[in-house]
């Protein structure tokens, strides 16, 4: 029934989200709306809370104040709601986090089989399609440890896509990669963005942001300092902190 929604209807709504680690105030009132099909890039210095924030969206981190509504489901302590949201949101991690004891294909089909209840044959068919989409169908029977970092991250994207999520979350997907492998992962992500997937991406890849982002958010000290389209952010940043940070990461 979500097919009948307006194309620009918000699918993620965050209102005044706060998070503390002990006494440390990690997120200080984040407000964000992500529309269906929108590609959001979150960037900022390390320790600015951007990873923490993206992880509150699928409850890998618990927010302590404010509200988060994903695909119409408010995030509460209700475990079933949390699992429903996780089924609809795929996540890609900095360290890939593939399951080392399973083959590439088993990594991809595990959740569809055990969470969605698909048959093995059906799951493997979809898995093969996804491996072709990320460009490594020939690696299906290998183990993650036998692949390069770029290939592992592409498998991780395929694994997240196998659940047919409505939203994809990327937590610094290229930060652990050798430079020559970053492009192959970004290519997959750009293709995914072009296909209309709703994406929230924490990244320092400004080329990627410029190419596909609809909205960029600059995080610092647990707050959104500035947001806007790539043209606004790169062409005419308003805040001094944004200017400083951009000059630092774009200078080399």
């Amino acid at each position: 029934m979500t097919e009948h929604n307006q194309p620009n209807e918000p699918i993620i709504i965050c209102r005044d989200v706060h998070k503390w680690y002990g006494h440390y105030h990690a997120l200080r009132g984040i407000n964000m709306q992500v529309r269906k099909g929108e590609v959001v890039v979150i960037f900022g210095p390390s320790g600015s809370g951007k990873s923490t924030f993206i992880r509150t969206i699928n409850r890998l981190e618990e927010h302590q104040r404010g509200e988060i509504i994903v695909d119409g489901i408010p995030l509460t302590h209700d475990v079933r709601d949390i699992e429903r949201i996780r089924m609809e949101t795929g996540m890609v991690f900095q360290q890939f986090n593939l399951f080392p004891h399973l083959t590439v294909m088993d990594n991809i089909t595990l959740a569809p089989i055990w969470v969605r209840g698909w048959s093995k044959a059906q799951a493997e068919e979809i898995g093969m399609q996804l491996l072709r989409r990320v460009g490594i169908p020939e690696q299906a029977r290998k183990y993650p440890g036998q692949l390069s970092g770029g290939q592992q991250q592409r498998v991780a994207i395929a694994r997240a896509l196998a659940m047919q999520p409505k939203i994809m979350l990327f937590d610094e997907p290229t930060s652990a990669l050798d430079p020559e492998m970053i492009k192959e992962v970004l290519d997959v992500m750009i293709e995914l963005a072009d296909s209309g997937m709703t994406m929230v991406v924490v990244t320092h890849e400004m080329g990627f942001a410029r190419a596909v982002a609809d909205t960029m958010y600059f995080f610092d000290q647990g707050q959104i300092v500035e947001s806007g389209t790539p043209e606004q952010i790169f062409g005419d940043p308003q805040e001094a902190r944004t200017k400083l940070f951009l000059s630092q990461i774009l200078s080399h």
Partner: protein
Amino acid sequence: MSATTPSLPSRAEVLPPPTERYTALGWLRKNLFSTWYNALLTVIFSAIVVLLLRGFLEWAFTQARWEVITTNLRLFMVGQYPAAATWRAWACVILLALLIGLSWGIWGRNQRAGAIAFGALPFLLAILAQDEARVALLIVGVAGAVGFALSRWRGAQLQRISIIGWVVYFPLVILLISGFGGADGPLPLVTTNLWGGLLLTLLLTVVGIVFSFPLGVLLALGRQSSLPIVRALCVIYIEVIRGVPLITVLFMAQLMLPLFLPGVTIDRVVRAMAGIVLFSAAYLAENVRGGLQAIPRGQYEAARALGLNTWKMMLLIILPQALKAVIPILVGQFIALFKDTSLVVIVGLLDLMGIAKAVLAQPDFLGLQAEVYLFVALVYGVFCYLMSAFSQRLEARLSVGR
């Protein structure tokens, strides 16, 4: 995005790694006589070994009275288990041989020498044995060979059957050994006070492993639980049991189980089994916890992010990795458990060790400690070696892709 592999420049030739080959003499020179003092050490230690070995062999072949073993072999193997029911113990061994043969063919790889040595064992023993034992051992050997042949013939289809076989094997053994019904039934009941010798030792071990393993895993998970009461109970249980010697637990099981369950009579073997299971589970829990702690947090997060609930996450993602990481420790624990079963002597059960003591008390064989204990040590040693070898195979087999 297709990656094309650039062809190697022809000038940089791909060379095979250098190989080292030695003649027997060359090997000796390199490893034993490389310098004058190494040569001297080799000579001195060879002399010592020869001296000791000669003394031992002289004793073993001229003075030792091995008839204490041969006369009491039945006692050592099955204790007081009635002769009319001995075939049931043999049936268990024959089934085991069949299953091992089958599994070896399905899962074993490139182990021809091991397979031949293992397969020849029952036939070699058959040469040494007499009467019905010889026939039974021949059947055991044939069963193993049949299992192996079956697996070669239809290995892929038999995989599932062989797994079911292993699962069914354990309860089947208990059923066969204990029997049911009256004396004129097909399998008359053999009360546990008649179980003894190696049979009892193995049963205690297998029951100990089969029941303490899941209990230990549950305790390990409970200790990591986010539910405070579950966690506290698990911690208390583990720490209390680990703070107490096995002998104490065995005594407690003998004395306290009947108090906890008034009106129910539980026989002594089952009480000893309970004690061993409860004891072993606490240690296993700590070993499994070590494995759980070795799993990076990212694995939990990836599993959760895919929507797996806690049980599926544990069973499919965390436990397979955690248990694999601690296989050597777990098998070490099982080997210790196997040897610890000898403590049931003190609650009056006649396991292999208990039988050894009983045999030594026979008037005909007084003072033959050396022969008896050497034999018992050999039996324990063989089984421990097999467990250890199996664990190494398992590790190698499971380390694919690492």
